[in-house]
């Protein structure tokens, strides 16, 4: 994670974007947290954010294609991300 670099600066490597990853319900419980900051290469997609999450042990319980939301809308895995975006993994819903 490029903690100090401003987004887009390629001083020591590819430009990075910073996104906010949100977890809820059974996913948050399994992960032990509700939020994380993720640094991804510029041009990353929602699928790339998901791939980063899958490196964690708790993520073995995720379905093959978990529902994803970008900036509070359901999004296909190929959705491009921008710096500051909010990406959420949405467990199967049970409202209403």
């Amino acid at each position, binding site marked *: 994670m490029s903690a100090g670099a401003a987004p887009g600066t390629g001083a020591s490597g590819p430009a990075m974007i910073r996104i906010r990853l949100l977890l809820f*319900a059974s996913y948050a419980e399994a992960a032990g947290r509700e939020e994380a900051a993720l640094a991804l290469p510029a041009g990353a997609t929602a699928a790339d954010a998901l791939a980063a999450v899958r490196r964690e042990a708790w993520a073995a319980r995720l379905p093959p294609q978990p529902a994803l939301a970008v900036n509070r*809308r359901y999004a296909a895995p190929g959705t491009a991300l921008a710096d500051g975006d909010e990406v959420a993994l*949405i467990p*199967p*819903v*049970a*409202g*209403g």
Partner: protein
Amino acid sequence: MSAWLTDQPIDVGSLIAAVASDGSGGTVAFLGTVRRSPEDGDVASIEYSAYREMAAAELDRIVAEAAARWPDARVALRHRLGGVPTGEASVAVVAAAPHRAEAFAAARFVIDETKRRVPIWKRERLGSGVARWVEGRPPAGSEEGRGGAR
């Protein structure tokens, strides 16, 4: 908290009043209530949680879609979050229209879409104090809900 979400018991009377107008000939009120059947075991209450900002946005979209399909219908909705005891309402949808057909159709659409799409989850709290997540459904509008085309 957006107008759609509340952590208080739902006041259906206020929702009915909110959609009332001289032009309305039929008003439908739907309540989704927490039930307990014998096979559920000792469920004392259901705890609802949500991705609040997205739930509010998705409910905005659902109500706007209903307004586009039934322009003469007025719709109100409340979804309760937090602990809801057995027998109490977790969600209410009220629709008023000049004629009952539109009121029923708009109310049915809004509750059905709410159940299909809105990022809300529920956990059963048993009398023993143990909590267990209730299995949900992949949300409509997501790739997962569509069977993962890609």
